[in-house]
């Protein structure tokens, strides 16, 4: 009996040891990119930022299992797979990243120092250069990894300069600041910069909380100034969402498309600079690209209920 007891005690100590010293897996979504988002699951001490009105903030470790961290990292990475941006859990990668192209997202249980919200961030802080972090508060989401990933992507979007995608009535009066995709009740989609928790969420072109007369293209803002992230330089075709627009034929100076609806389109270079824009009609379309630079370009299209993007080589 004594022998078994010792074994049991040794096993308990080993389990405690493994749990206490379990390390966050070091993950990178796209290592070639200099621009970096660091998902900090390990707890943090934060000083000297706009969050420190009441002094030092001690953020507890997330306490998530390695499997949950891997899953959350994958979900967030998928949201940013179009961009030349690395989502990492490695603090050393964050330290090496350019100060004007990095952000730390602290994922921690308790946000009571701020309030009962799923997270908070400073608009545009990705380029501030002063290591102001953004926050995801897990307790507000029941520690659900799906919600944590959606909230983290939402906060990253804010740090990249995005405002909320809002819903307005025909007179331009705001109905709700956070759109949940209500304008299409038959769709299962919602804006990542609205309420991203209950539907398939994606980046959108829509009207931001700054005004009904404005248009916010989430992907264009992420890629372009002042973030200057751009798009991934791989030549492979990557659809962000849906197959609403299909490239049928591509020749030097010309792009032939088959569109499933009437959409607007925009063509960007790899740095996120807008080169062309126009409209696609249902069916066959041709875009003349002879006036734009050669190289890897990104075609984005958007309609009322669908949006997507695809890389092309001109």
């Amino acid at each position, binding site marked *: 009996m004594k022998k078994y007891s010792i074994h049991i005690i040794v096993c308990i100590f080993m389990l405690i040891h493994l749990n206490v010293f379990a390390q966050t897996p070091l993950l990178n979504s796209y290592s070639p990119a200099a621009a970096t988002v660091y998902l900090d699951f390990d707890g943090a001490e934060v*000083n*000297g*930022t*706009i*969050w*420190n*009105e009441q002094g030092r903030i001690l953020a507890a470790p997330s306490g998530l299992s390695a499997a949950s961290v891997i899953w959350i990292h994958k979900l967030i990475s998928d949201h940013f797979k179009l961009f030349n941006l690395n989502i990492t859990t490695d603090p050393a990668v964050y330290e090496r990243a*350019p*100060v*004007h192209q990095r952000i730390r997202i602290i994922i921690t249980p308790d946000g009571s120092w*701020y*309030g009962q*919200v*799923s*997270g*908070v*961030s*400073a*608009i545009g802080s990705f380029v*501030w*250069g*002063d*290591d*102001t972090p953004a926050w995801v508060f897990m307790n507000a989401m029941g520690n659900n990894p799906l919600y944590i990933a959606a909230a983290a992507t939402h906060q990253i979007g*804010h740090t990249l300069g995005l*405002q*909320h995608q809002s819903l307005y009535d025909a007179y331009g009066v705001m109905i709700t600041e956070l759109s949940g995709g209500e304008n299409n009740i038959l769709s299962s989609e919602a804006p990542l910069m609205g309420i991203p928790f209950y539907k398939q969420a994606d980046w959108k072109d829509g009207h931001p*909380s*700054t005004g009904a007369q404005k248009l916010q293209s989430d992907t264009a803002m992420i890629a372009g100034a002042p973030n200057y992230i751009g798009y991934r330089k791989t030549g492979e075709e990557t659809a962000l969402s849906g197959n609403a627009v299909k490239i049928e034929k591509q020749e030097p100076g010309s792009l032939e498309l088959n569109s499933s609806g009437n959409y607007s389109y925009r063509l960007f270079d790899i740095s996120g600079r807008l080169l062309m824009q126009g409209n696609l009609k249902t069916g066959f379309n041709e875009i003349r690209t002879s006036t734009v630079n050669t190289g890897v370009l990104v075609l984005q299209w958007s309609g009322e209920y669908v949006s997507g993007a695809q890389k092309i080589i001109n």
Partner: protein
Amino acid sequence: MNTLKTILSGLCLLCSLQLSAQEKPAPAELPYSNKIEVSDQALESLFQAPENISVELAPGFHIKGKIENKSDHGNSVISLLIKLNNAEGSMLSIARYRDPKGGIYYTGRLLKLHDPDGMMLIEKDKRYFFIETQQRFLVSE
């Protein structure tokens, strides 16, 4: 916050009077009614000030408080966090950037969490302005 608003309103009035007397008006395309122009020299003085800071950034725009933090980031950025005594605990966060060619730039924001309004430092045509803005455009949940 009411005190802050009163102070800012007074400052903006003073500043608008001062701007109207200047030869170069503020850029018309700045879509903000409440803006205070501050000079590079005034901004730089924040970084040279002692811990208990008292600096007049513009006529009537007085920054008085305590430097809570001063830190370097990657050899190109110095950031300051100043807790203001004269604006009900608002924080001024300001950073100075040095580009590879030696150019100096500043960014900053003045806010108190959960207040409806704040201020943002912006650069336009190599001139700096503190503009008043809704805080939800500075911080978002």
